[in-house]
């Protein structure tokens, strides 16, 4: 007997996939024991389905009845499936994913978007322009070109170290606001170029990159590139897309060095050297920077954070047999994910404790900087000191954005708390608790500033 239905029937007519839904085949390099299959929804979001569901989905053409579908799927799988079974799978499994014709619009983002994920996002370069530029830059991923670029980077690094020019440039930077502004601008351009690297690598592999935008991740302003479509690539293609950003940082450093050779403009050297720190930072796997996606794709597990609770339960509470989050992973994937968790949980935990302890202090310092900068900004604008005014504005923005980020996360957490439990992502209670704690400290910090 089938489990009880939790949602109403889709319709009496033959079921069909919604327009724009793409069936993409097997999810290559998956860490799951039973490799899932990929479906791209009309809104660009990727879904994974079990082989049986994918086989059923392939025959949802609006002409075949559930009995017809049952016959062809039975023949294909070698297992007997009834029309009632197909109706159950369509209604209970596929319909909630919003891939069927006649289901509500898929335009809006799902309610389960993580509270501490990327937010306050807005587009900077539309996807059409990103794809066009990525198409032009594709030759940069031809293997021989990659090799040449890396050799050029090693040569310029050797020169930079031996010549010792970077240290001298850094000390002069403090006394030349114009240079400082140039460094800020060039570093921002480098961030956008990094994202183009992801887009170009994705395009080189055969996927279609999305828009490049800006937003706030946790506390920090970021550029991002929407690479949802790169799920369709094999493991090597996804890894190339993950590493394309830091590769473009290397290309950018070489370009800046060449420009320095032509112009002798010292800030170029400094920005070229900074790219190395950017690359190192991007490899950190603990938050959703490039290193996180590299680990994720090596393991074949798209959501590493979602595996923390089941794997901790398996390792420390011995809940292997009943724990689907543990059982459904291959041994290699389990090893990689377990190592990642054992590193990430203590480090992030320590980071959160530090943040909680220091929030009032950080807010006090931040408010002091904002007050001081604001007092200087008005006279700088009035006296037409463009460079100083721009620097002050940039600093005000840099100090304010984390506060805006925390405020935004807080508001979203409160809105989510006010919604029904069904609308929250599963297992999110600890995140809500932590968010509430940070929010309380945040409010206390603001209150103490107001009192002063």
């Amino acid at each position, binding site marked *: 007997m*089938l*489990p009880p239905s939790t949602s109403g029937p889709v319709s009496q007519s033959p079921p069909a996939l919604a327009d724009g839904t793409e069936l993409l085949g097997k999810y290559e390099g998956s860490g799951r024991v039973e490799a899932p299959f990929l479906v791209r929804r009309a809104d660009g*979001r*990727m*879904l*994974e*389905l*079990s082989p*049986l*569901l994918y086989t059923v989905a392939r025959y949802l053409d609006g002409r075949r009845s559930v009995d017809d579908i049952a*016959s062809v799927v*039975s023949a294909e799988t070698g*297992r*007997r499936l*009834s029309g009632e*079974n197909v109706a159950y799978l369509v209604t209970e*499994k*596929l319909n*909630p*994913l919003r891939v069927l014709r006649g289901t509500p619009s898929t335009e809006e983002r799902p309610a*389960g978007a993580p509270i501490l*994920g*990327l937010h306050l996002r807005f587009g900077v370069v539309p996807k059409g322009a990103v794809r066009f530029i990525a198409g032009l830059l594709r030759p940069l991923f031809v293997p021989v070109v990659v090799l040449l670029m890396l050799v050029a980077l090693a040569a310029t690094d050797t020169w930079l170290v031996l010549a010792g020019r970077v240290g001298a440039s850094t000390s002069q*930077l*403090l006394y030349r606001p114009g240079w*400082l502004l140039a460094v800020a601008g060039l570093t921002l351009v480098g*961030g956008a170029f990094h994202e183009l690297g992801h887009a170009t690598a994705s395009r080189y592999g055969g996927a279609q990159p999305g828009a490049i935008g800006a937003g706030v991740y946790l506390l*920090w*302003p*970021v*550029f991002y590139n*929407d*690479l*949802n479509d*790169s*799920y369709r690539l094999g493991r090597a293609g996804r890894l190339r*897309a*993950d590493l394309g*950003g830091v590769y473009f940082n290397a290309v950018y450093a070489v370009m800046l060095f060449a420009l320095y050779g032509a112009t002798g403009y010292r800030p170029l050297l400094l920005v070229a050297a*900074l790219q190395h*720190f*950017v690359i190192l*930072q*991007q490899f950190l796997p603990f938050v*959703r*920077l*490039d290193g996180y996606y590299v680990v994720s794709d090596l393991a074949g597990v*798209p*959501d590493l954070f979602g595996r923390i609770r089941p794997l901790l339960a398996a390792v420390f509470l011995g809940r292997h047999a009943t724990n689907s989050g543990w059982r459904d992973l291959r041994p290699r994937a389990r090893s990689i994910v377990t190592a990642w968790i054992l590193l990430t949980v203590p480090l992030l935990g320590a980071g959160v404790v530090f943040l909680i302890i*220091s929030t009032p202090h950080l807010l006090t*310092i*931040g408010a002091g900087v904002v007050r001081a900068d604001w007092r*200087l900004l008005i006279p700088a604008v009035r006296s037409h000191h463009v460079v100083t005014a721009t*620097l*002050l504005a*940039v*600093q005000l923005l*840099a*100090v304010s954005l*984390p506060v805006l980020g925390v405020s935004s996360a807080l508001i979203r957490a409160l809105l989510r708390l006010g919604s029904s439990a069904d609308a929250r992502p599963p297992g999110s209670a600890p995140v809500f608790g932590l968010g509430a704690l940070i929010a309380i400290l945040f409010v206390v910090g603001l209150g103490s500033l107001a009192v002063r």
Partner: protein
Amino acid sequence: MSFQDQAAFTAAELDSQHTAELPARDLMIGISILGLPLVSLDGLAVNVNTAGPNWLFGSVGKVG
């Protein structure tokens, strides 16, 4: 093998069919800019923020 000889899918098998919405792949880079000193001139003093994304406020202070 005829259709009737095939083993039928059980209710438990049907119920356990896996579906998931994969997380968004938004590959990001911090632009609070690692190591970039943001400076404001305040008389002889200089506010320096050697801000990295992970230490944005941590190193805000006055020098000079």
